[in-house]
């Protein structure tokens, strides 16, 4: 392609898309490693299969669409989608869950819309929703952590059987996530004062020693990674803060009204992948609004939906659905929320200078 002579500007910030994706991958790496260590070899197998599926589907789609394959494959976006999808899957899920998820995320969630920058829905979340709805059993098979190299963790060969063959003794390993447990117990008319002890402790939850998906248990590591991204200015604070603040306010409010029925803000913040969603999933630039106010609205909407789905909805955990629903609202938010143009009113007309504002900026006789 010919770009020269190009117009100004002839200088550029050091940012680029691969660099941004690389920084995000770096930020999510600690949580990923922790999750893999926590859940053992099968988790690693699933992780690799998912990523591989994503990259393969991306390459094939690009070739079919007639685009140059290398630059897009190497820009890190498919890899990031794969990582985030893998992090939201049950750790010992069979390999085909990862493969189908990867296929759905890349092909249906991204390439069908025209490739990077064109999709409406977050590809990883779209795939997770599709998998959850299509394969509810495999997608809700949670288990207690079985750290790598510990006594009751499967060895490498055994893990291959688990990933490619299926879990041999399902009942022996399966457990519920905290939110799932709360939901079932509340459904049986028990109260939180009875449900939580023995199943939930804030300390272990923060450190991630609970059942959950591959990467959503290590909340502290996710938070640290997210804060690092904020410090590096890869993203701004608006979406994560709006999301978490909304959940905090709603959870806090309802918990104060009825502590036995509504879980405390700490429970909500530390479970169900909320941290991952706030810092890594809802902040996807393509599917979230471009203006700051729009991002605040988007974050608040996600937070509200997460709380509503968790408390009154059909599924115990709602981040994926909340994000996908707010993604659908993003074009609307972008359409109505626009910055005010310099020199114009909010309606777009010329903004006259008020007479009284035309005072001299220099006070008469003021010395410097």
């Amino acid at each position, binding site marked *: 392609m010919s770009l020269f002579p190009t117009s100004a500007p002839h200088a550029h910030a050091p940012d680029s898309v691969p660099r941004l994706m690389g920084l995000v991958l770096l930020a999510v790496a600690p949580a990923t490693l922790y999750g893999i260590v926590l859940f053992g070899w099968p988790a690693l197998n699933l992780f690799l299969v998912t990523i591989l599926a994503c990259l393969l589907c991306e390459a094939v789609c690009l070739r079919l669409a007639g685009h*140059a394959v290398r630059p897009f494959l190497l820009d890190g976006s498919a890899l990031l989608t794969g990582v985030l999808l893998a992090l939201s899957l049950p750790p010992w899920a069979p390999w085909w869950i990862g493969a189908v998820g990867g296929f759905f995320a890349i092909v249906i969630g991204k390439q069908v819309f025209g490739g990077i920058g064109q999709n409406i829905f977050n590809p990883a979340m779209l795939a997770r929703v599709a998998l959850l709805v299509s394969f509810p059993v495999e997608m809700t098979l949670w288990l207690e952590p079985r750290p790598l190299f510990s006594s009751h963790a499967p060895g490498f060969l055994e893990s291959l059987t688990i990933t490619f063959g299926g879990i041999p003794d399902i009942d022996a390993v399966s457990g519920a996530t905290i939110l799932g447990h709360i939901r079932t117990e509340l459904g049986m008319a028990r109260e939180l004062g009875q449900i939580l002890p023995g199943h939930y402790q804030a300390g272990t939850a923060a450190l991630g020693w609970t059942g959950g998906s591959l990467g959503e248990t290590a909340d502290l590591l996710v938070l640290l990674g997210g804060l690092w991204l904020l410090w590096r200015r890869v993203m701004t604070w608006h979406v994560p803060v709006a999301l978490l603040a909304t959940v905090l306010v709603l959870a806090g409010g309802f918990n104060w009204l009825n502590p036995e029925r509504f879980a405390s803000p700490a429970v909500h913040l530390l479970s169900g992948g909320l941290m991952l969603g706030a810092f890594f999933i809802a902040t996807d630039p393509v599917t979230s609004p471009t203006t700051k106010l729009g991002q605040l609205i988007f974050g608040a909407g996600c937070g509200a939906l997460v709380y509503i789905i968790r408390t009154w909805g059909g599924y115990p955990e709602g981040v994926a659905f909340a994000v996908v629903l707010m993604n659908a609202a993003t074009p609307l938010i972008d359409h109505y929320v626009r910055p005010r143009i310099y020199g114009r009113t909010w309606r777009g007309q010329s903004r006259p200078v008020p007479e009284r504002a035309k005072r001299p900026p220099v006070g008469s006789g003021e010395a410097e």
Partner: protein
Amino acid sequence: MIAAVLSLTLLGLALGWVLGLAARYLRVENNPLHEEIQQLLPGVNCGQCGYPGCGGAAEALAASKAPVTLCPPGGPTLVRALAAKLGVAVDRASNSGPPLLAQVNEATCIGCAHCGGRCPTDAIIGAPKQIHGVIQDACIGCGLCVEVCPTECLQLRPVTPVLKNWHWPKPTLSFGV
């Protein structure tokens, strides 16, 4: 079940009848399409489009037999207006090149003055037996003068770009191969 089938059929018939009434009594009278199109055309009757005058071109356009880019004197403004009127998608970026304007080659002009009479916008100046010239601002590039010039001193040439009219071209980005 019979009740359901019956009620829906009756509903369909009733609404269809109402639509028919509306089509007859609430009809909006329009100008025939070709008259509206003719309003848009320059009205020069130069024949460059290949149709008998602007009226002929208007009828061909109304019958969708002619492309909306048929009229050079109309320029891109006309293309857009016709595309909007006829609901035709036009490749927006297509510029058929810079506009053509007539120019006199003064070396070969014999001053026969045949061209002046043909020009529909009186863009040609010059007395008989004197060298003629074309007022570029008034010329619309219809080519009628070129046809009658016996020495072929009149030619349609693209306008030379000037600094005032220059602008940056659109960046050509292709993300493909």
